């Protein structure tokens, strides 16, 4: 029983991390149709910021966490301004290639400017200690991760429901031009989307770093790939879909880890993606794909 509960907590924690990153991808995709593969490098920038703080002997945890999140937000805004604004109204393929280009450039910058090898970041180990939750021993980090993700989802929902800018972002996912025609400045909508996306990357960065304890130039690749899969399963462009996809992917991964016999352990990912493929056969557009416009209503 305790083993099952622990594994469920694992699944929840993995799922929470994927959901955070997937939301960051989905929010940008929903308004500009861009699959931002440079999102992983935004996460890595957060990690390298922690390295820089450690080198400056700034070990206050609030400064480290706040600094990493701020760096991720600034990086995300910078990418929007420098790389994505010029291709804003271009073909989606152009945006995709731009994102890949930015990703490669940034990885090489990390490689040349810092190191091709992992750099240790130890200032976040304090986040991880064993706790008893309803009689089950889990890691505090997992609890933080799940709670943070829930808070982020609630916060995002309130933002999208209650503020004019939030309404504009929801409307923009359907008809951006019309949003401009009610007078909402498009630059502001894009900037907020990238800011939220950067904030989510920064939060994900905290948890990834607290668990791994090191940063390398390719840090972001795997999480973003997983988050991309989560988005596809959940329905690309749908924010609830991104969350659902993230948690589903976390659950499937942990389930395969637990259920597969030892000798099949190496094939975990094959089974995971096999299940994902089956889900997509069942719902080709993802589970919660956003409704498509079916033309004018007469």
């Amino acid at each position, binding site marked *: 029983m305790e083993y099952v509960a622990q594994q469920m907590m694992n699944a929840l924690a993995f799922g929470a991390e994927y959901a955070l990153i997937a939301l960051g991808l989905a929010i940008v995709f929903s308004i500009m149709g861009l699959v931002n593969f440079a999102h992983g490098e935004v996460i890595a920038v957060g990690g390298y910021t922690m390295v820089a703080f450690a080198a400056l002997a700034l070990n206050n945890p609030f400064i480290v966490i706040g600094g990493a999140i701020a760096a991720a937000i600034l990086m995300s805004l910078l990418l929007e301004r420098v790389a994505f604004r010029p291709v804003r109204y271009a073909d989606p393929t152009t945006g995709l290639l731009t994102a890949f280009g930015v990703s490669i450039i940034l990885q090489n910058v990390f490689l040349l400017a810092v190191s091709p090898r992992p750099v240790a970041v130890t200032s976040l180990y304090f986040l991880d200690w064993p706790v008893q939750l309803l009689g089950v021993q889990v890691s505090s980090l997992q609890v933080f991760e799940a709670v943070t993700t829930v808070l982020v989802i609630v916060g995002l929902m309130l933002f999208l429901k209650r503020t*004019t800018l939030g*309404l*504009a972002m*929801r*409307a923009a*996912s*359907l*008809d951006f*031009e*019309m*949003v*401009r*025609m*009610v*007078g*909402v*400045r*498009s630059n502001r909508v894009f900037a907020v989307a990238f800011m939220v996306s950067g904030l989510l990357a920064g939060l994900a960065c905290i948890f990834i770093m607290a668990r791994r304890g090191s940063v390398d130039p390719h840090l972001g690749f795997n999480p973003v790939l997983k988050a991309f899969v989560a988005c596809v399963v959940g329905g690309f462009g749908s924010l609830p879909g991104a969350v659902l996809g993230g948690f589903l992917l976390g659950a499937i991964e942990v389930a395969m880890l637990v259920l597969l016999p030892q000798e099949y352990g190496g094939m975990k990912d094959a089974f995971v993606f096999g299940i994902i493929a089956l889900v997509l056969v069942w719902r080709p557009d993802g589970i919660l794909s*956003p*409704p498509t*416009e079916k033309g*004018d*209503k*007469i």
Partner: protein
Amino acid sequence: MLNVENLIVSHGPIEAVHGISFAVDKGRCVSLLGPNGAGKTSTISALMGVVKSSGRITFDGADVSSLPVEARVQAGMSVAPEGRRIFSNLSVEENLVLGGATRSDRTAKDADIAHWLETFPILGERRDQPAGTLSGGEQQMLAISRALMTRPKILLLDEPSLGLAPKIVSQIFQMIERLKAQGITILLVEQNATQALRLSDYAYLLNNGRIVAEGTKETLGQSSALMAELTGIA
């Protein structure tokens, strides 16, 4: 109030509007009439700045030709576009809130929202429903209310009667008449020339991207074999 000189609109290599000039005076209702493909919607899009165009557009004494869309809305232009384009994933009320996005006075804005929900009781009843569930006529009422949420100096109406049942069409035109009576400046684009002419102070007839006739409803109404050919009015 609105002055357009030599407006040229191209979609890629195809020129849709070949240098037209017209004017809308303050407090008047002016209509642009013409058949499908005459360049009416291209003209509206160019006025709002969502398609590239050349020529000179002056509004309220200032040249707005090079301003982006948002700045034109700030300056006092607002549009209920062709196809209505309501935000179907937002509730009726949220559509109106977003319509007033440029305004900072919360109380006045809330009062306007309440006003429109009262004016169109059907919208009031469905304030929390997704706008996509409304019928075509209700969507058109919402689109016009949304456009008026900015408190515009001029309202551009692009084919408000398109695709609606005759009874609904006359309701929509009654609404436009009321707006006109309130002193709102209106540029009305229509294929339904009979109805549009009835409430217009002045009209321009557009065909193949050129203005082929203009005048008051009396002069236009008399003139014309051409008018008959284009619009079906004998």
